[in-house]
């Protein structure tokens, strides 16, 4: 299962965990699994997050593949000027 890391402000919504293991073959499946396990995270994900998979930030890419040993970080929603 992929390791999904949460920024500290999200940990209170996930039983205080910094890292959770979630099954899924795509970013979308992992995020859906995360919300299913911790429904309190849904508002944060709806507000918008960026996702880094194995060091690569994959915005708007629910189809991006995730491997069983992938390291995933939730990041703040990105943009620019």
């Amino acid at each position, binding site marked *: 299962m992929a390791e999904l890391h949460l920024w*500290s402000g999200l940990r209170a919504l996930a039983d205080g965990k910094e890292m959770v293991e979630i099954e899924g073959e795509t970013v979308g499946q992992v995020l859906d699994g995360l919300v299913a396990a911790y429904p309190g995270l849904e508002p944060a994900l709806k507000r918008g997050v960026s996702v880094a998979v194995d*060091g*690569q930030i994959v915005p708007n890419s629910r189809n991006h593949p995730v491997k069983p040993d992938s390291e995933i970080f939730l*990041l703040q929603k990105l*943009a620019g000027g």
Partner: protein
Amino acid sequence: MALDGQKTAYKYIGTTPNRPDGLDKVTGRARYGADISVPGMLHGAVVRSPHAHAKIVKIDATKALAMEGVKAVITRADFPEGLEGEDWDIQENCMAGEKALYDGHAVAAVAATSPLVARDAAKAIEVTYEILPHVTDVDEAMKEGAPVIREGAADFSVPEGLHPNVVRYFDSGRGDLDKGFAEADLIIERSFTTEAAHQGYIEPHACLGQMGADNRGELWVCTQGHWFMRRMSTAVLGIETTNIRVTPSEIGGGFGGKTTVFIEPLSLALSRKAGGKPVKMVMSRNEVLRATGPTASASMDVKMGMTKDGRITAAHGTFRMQGGAFAGAPVDVTTMLAFANYDIEHVHHIGYDVITNRPRQAAYRAPGAPMAAFATESVIDELCRELGLDPIDTRLKNAAKEGTRATFGPKYGPIGFMETLEAAKAHPNYSEPLGPNQGRGVASGYWMNWGGETSASVAISEDGSVTVSVGTPDIGGSRASMALMAAEAFGIPYENVRVNISDTGALGVNEPTHGSRATYASGLATIRAAEECIGKMCKRAADKWGIDPEAVVWEDGCAKPSGPNAGEFPPMTIAEIAGEMGGTGGPISGHYEDSPAGFSGSFGTHVVDVEVDPETGRTTILRYLVVQDAGKAIHPAYVEGQFQGGAAQGIGWALNEEYIYGEDGRLQNPVFLDYRVPVASDLPMIDTVIVEVPNPGHPYGVRGVGETGITPPLPAVANAVRDATGKRICKLPLRPSRVLAAIQGKEV
């Protein structure tokens, strides 16, 4: 470094031809937002609140509507109700509802047959206000008893007990701060403030909207992103997105400030109310400064620990930002990037997004990063001074590199921070002798860059020239960069490529030219679309030769047989293939669309020398060096232009630019005479060094370069002023009066 499949030898990439739009722009032929006119056009004007916070009791347009030439007046009542989230924020900002939330907030608009009549009619609209208490300072807005801008504006993230003006809260970090600070030989903690700074684009917002009673129409507009214009304008008006076709004009600067709407939905609503006549709207500079987005102002506390030999052991930052009367101050990004240049095990960030009675902030070049850099890079400078360490060597000791776990979580891929530091140290500016009252400052910065939704097409013309269609407006020379990348892909001269910025009816959705993404993302799409064309042209040649398409290669603008069984045929040029395409299968074009995820951040290091007049406190920039990683510079002159532009804007933010509010909450300096941006005579030629550590996520190694350059100047200049005066000033701007007060030992 793994660069499999990445091209490394170039014919056109790295050259510096003139930009294809250059002649139009120097001869006045280029059409900017205010240059668009059509027959029967009306002119719009906006009634703006003179109060920072006021209930709108009554709007009486009777006198205005009775004036000859006045065709329509709109208020919030002309817009749909029931919008939510950011759509409501945008609508409320474009046209006030129950309350005016800042000085300059639109409360009504009028369309008339001339600009003069429109302005007179706007003055004739009578608005009755009930003035409310206001607050414009971020720290004041968080205090108990501060006026509440809007109840219920906070989202789920805000802890209980905070003022209702705190609307978002961020908390991120890792490690054990106590352990990290215990390992330090020196700990320094400082508090900093930065003022709001405007993007300062030369061209004010301008548009021409036309919409009929069927809610269908067109919008011509000066913008960084016309799909954003379409989505936001139609959301504000409550109509379907594709009802409006948006065509971008040329753009005289944006820097993030033209990624959202202000007057555009008003022009469409006025047009509809005026029977479908087109309505042109052009902002004055006063309106630009009062009512469009500057960036956020900030109040920050940063604490860092360091060992005697210069290793950063721990870092903690608290960042409070106000972004006007709506959620959205870029403190979310600040809490990711504040310490991102460095390899720090124990790090923690806290962020507060606070609303005040100021205009809704908009993105500004690396939004959220320069303020944080001012705080963190100033503290690092203090640590180096106290410990007697060289500022570049110390940064080298702590610099993030490939494999470093970023302070925001994931590990970096190939990055070029170390290379920028080494190049800065080796540059002659770093060893130039300094005179009396002169000082040197060093600072580094980072921006993550962006991919974003991207759609581009490439078409082969009958004579073998090539048309590239992209959806990212050309602000800093991107037509030239696209043409160079297409020329490289096809192996044809740069001059044989024409680049068009297409309207919203011609391509799929494109995000704006923002996030330093245009050269990366539209460039990648251009290359991929060109490769599709090349594949088709190879097949046309193969069909003609009667061989397998796999036995044809593309080299130097020609299809050539390749391999032992391909046969002997003379190469077919792109012009020959194009000349026959009508009879060999029809037009040849390629298309590519993606939200590319292979973007990679750009690090930069700046070195500045200043001289401070001890009698007046005026700071003069003597020399300035920008070193930044471009991955691969497609057009080096325009990369240098981005470096220099970012530095110039950052110097302005550091030395002079600020929003000054009176006690009445009104902006005191809404003109360029009083809002002091640097002009050419204020600055020396800014020296540049382009570092090239290729980005594996782009076929040619491109990294975005537009934003990083504004991040280091704030601390670099402050560090130089500290070096020159012996005084650490933790508030920006470093205007002469503030610097002089510091020199005189007064509290600043």
